[in-house]
Structures are given as C-alpha cells and as structure tokens.
C-alpha cells in the first residue's frame, strides 16, 4: 500500500471499517511509514481530546428540568412555525347549536361549551402529546352533558350570539341543574380576535341554577379563563356551586 492509497483508506481504517485484508495492508504500511503512522497517532490523540473536552462540558449541564420545561412549552401552546396547533373546531358544536337555535331563534351560550367539545379525538391527537387525554376526554364528556341539558326540550332560552370575547346569556325558565366546566386555555390573537389555542377543560363545580336565574358564560380575553356566572333577578352575578345532580 502506498501513502496515497493509505490516505484514501485513512477514515475507514481509524473507524475500524476496513475489511480484514485491507486492514492488514494498512497496518503493514504504517509499520514502514513513519509519516502515515504519525498521522494516525495524531488523529487518535485528537479524537481522545475532543471526546474528553465535550464530555466534560456536557456532564456539567443540568438537564433535570428539561422534561418540565418541554412540557410547559407544549402546554402553553407556543406558536409554531408551521402553525400546527389550531383552534378546536367549532363547526360541529356550532351547527348543533344552530339547529337548536334555529328552533329558538337564536344562538345559545352553550355554543362555546359545545364548540370546545367538538371532535375531542382530533384534539387529543393534536394536543395531547403530553398527556391531556384524560383531562380532555373527561372534560368533554362533562361539557357535552351540560350542553345536552341546556338543550333539553321545554326550556325557554332567549339567547344572543356567542363569540369568543363577548358574554352570552340565557335565562332559565325552570330549575336546571347543570355541571359547567371552566376552561383555561392560552389564547392567541388571530385576525383581531383572541382565540383559544389549547382548550384544557377542568371540572370546577357543579352549578344549580333555579328558576328566574340567568346563566352567563364568557371568555375573559387574555386571562385564559372561561367563566360561568349565575345571576338572579334581584341581585348581581354570583358564582353558585352545588352538587352534581344526574
């Protein structure tokens, strides 16, 4: 083997990738060529220095909070370059509400609640990479139950259009026990409207709203909170709680 040939075989040789015959030829060359032998020795020294230098620095880096930091960033629904995080679809919930409200002549406040429950499976795939499955599924079931109850026949619901940022109210013609869900979601500004990025339903309280009471629900822009209030005729809004009554 010549020096030129060894130079071409240098990398697979030092990486131990030469076939046995070629490796033997390379070793024979090194035994008789101090220049090439010195080149290999220098490389081995450089390799050790590099590995040691990197290992010493890397070993000192504290990665104990890395999972928490990554999880927090994902939970916060940070903006993505590809915009992968999207709003939960409101189509299904809204259309359901529109069907109902076509009968009632308006749109219910529960649009927002139902909207957040739309296609929970899809949301889980998108948002639950860090374990929101249980929360989303549980919250969705509860919110769906609330929506169903709100939409029960026999109810008189003068309503107004619900949006993400305006309150929606409806009055109850009869006693209704419902279990509201308060959603906390980071929001982003999208075309001038604050929209939720990642609905994270969390069961708060059961709520009993008696006859003549007004239940309002709205999203507080930029506070990441949806609030449900119950207001009686003669007093200001209060948040009432009660046990869940099936």
């Amino acid at each position, binding site marked *: 083997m010549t020096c030129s040939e060894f130079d071409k075989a240098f990398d697979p040789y030092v990486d131990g990738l030469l076939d046995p015959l070629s490796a033997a030829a390379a070793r024979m060359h090194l035994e008789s060529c101090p220049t090439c032998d010195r080149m290999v020795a220098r*490389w081995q020294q450089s390799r050790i220095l590099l590995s040691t230098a990197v290992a010493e620095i*890397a*070993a*000192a880096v504290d990665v104990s909070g890395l999972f928490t930091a990554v999880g927090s960033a994902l939970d916060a629904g940070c903006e993505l370059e590809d915009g992968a995080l999207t709003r939960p679809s409101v189509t299904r919930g809204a259309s359901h509400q529109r069907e109902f409200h076509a009968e009632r002549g308006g749109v219910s406040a529960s649009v927002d609640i139902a909207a957040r429950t739309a296609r929970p499976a899809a949301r889980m795939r998108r948002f639950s990479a*860090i374990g929101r*499955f249980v929360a989303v599924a549980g919250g969705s079931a509860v919110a769906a139950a609330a929506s169903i109850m709100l939409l029960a026949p026999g109810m008189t619901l003068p309503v107004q259009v619900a949006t993400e940022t305006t309150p929606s109210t409806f009055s109850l013609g009869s006693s209704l026990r419902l279990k509201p869900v308060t959603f906390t979601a980071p929001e982003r500004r999208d075309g001038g409207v604050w929209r939720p990025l990642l609905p994270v339903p969390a069961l708060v309280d059961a709520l009993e709203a008696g006859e003549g009471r007004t239940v309002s629900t709205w999203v507080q822009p930029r506070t990441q909170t949806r609030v449900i209030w119950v207001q009686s005729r003669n007093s200001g809004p209060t948040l009432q709680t009660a046990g869940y009554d099936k």
Partner: protein
Amino acid sequence: MEPTDGELVDRARLGDRGAVEHLLERYQRRLLGVLVGMVRNPEDAREILQETFIRVFRNLENFKGDSSFYTWVYRIAMNLAIDYQRRDSKRPSVEFDEGVGRDEDSVGDGSAHLGVNPFERIRSRELGQKIFEAIESLTPDHRAVIILREIDGLSYEEISEVLQCSMGTVMSRLHYARKKLQTRLHEML
C-alpha cells in the same frame, strides 16, 4: 424489557406523558454531547436541546417512520445547531468557559479533583480549549460530520440520514475535517 422507540412514539402520540419523558431521557444526554461539540457553550447547547425536544413532540404526527426515531430527532437537533452556528458566526466568538463543571479552587490547592494532578488538569483544559478552537475553524457542515462520528459514534450511513446528504459527501467531509483538525492541532500543540 425496555420499550422500543416505536412503542414509545405510539404511546406518546396517544398522550402518554410517561412515554414522552422516557424518550426524552433516552436521548437527552447523547444529544447534549453532540450539541456541545457543535456549539461549545453549554447554555446554548441546553437551549438547543430543549428546542429540539419541543419541536420533536409538537410534530410527532409528522414522523412517518421512514427513518429511525433517533435519526429524525438528531436531524432536528443538527439543523438547529447549524442554524445557530451560522447566526453565531456573525457574532464574536464565545470564550471557552473553563469554570464550567470544574472547581476553580481545586487547581494548586492540593485537593486534586478526582485524584488528577492539578497541573495535568490545567494542561487538559488548555488542550480542550485548543480542540474547540480547532473545531470552530471548520464550517458547520464539516463540524457536523466530525461531531456525529467522534462524539456519538454514528455510522457513515446514519450520518448521511441525519444530515440528508450522500455517503460520499459524508466521507469526503469527514476526511477533510479530520485532516484540518490534525493540522490545526499540530500547529497549536
């Protein structure tokens, strides 16, 4: 029996936070070593590491399984590191922080760190600094192949998958990088 990457990825997609954590812990130290080799500064390396995992788990649905999971992760990490280097090349270089991970007071006080002669440690730190200076004389692309090979021990084929270039390119860059490093180190040492 340890779950495979594929099993953990499937579970992570379904929202298993434990699977996410498992994957992260499986690769964080390896990736950190590579990133330190690429950018030297440990804080920057950690930041890139964190960003890597954020992108990995945000985009888990985009992982098709065409390559191995760790190749995909490495690809994201290396792209971030190379982008960082290209931005950083326009800024003054960061001084090697000899205090990182070392007890500065141990030099010469007789309480040799881990039983190593303090003068050897000084010499070792100087050599380490020279190594990084030599590494930084390489372009990001050349640095990437040498780091992936020497720090993480990836094969030529794996390197070509991570860097999305041909095997021939990997071997060519590796050969050039090694020669240049040897020359630089020979001049310095």
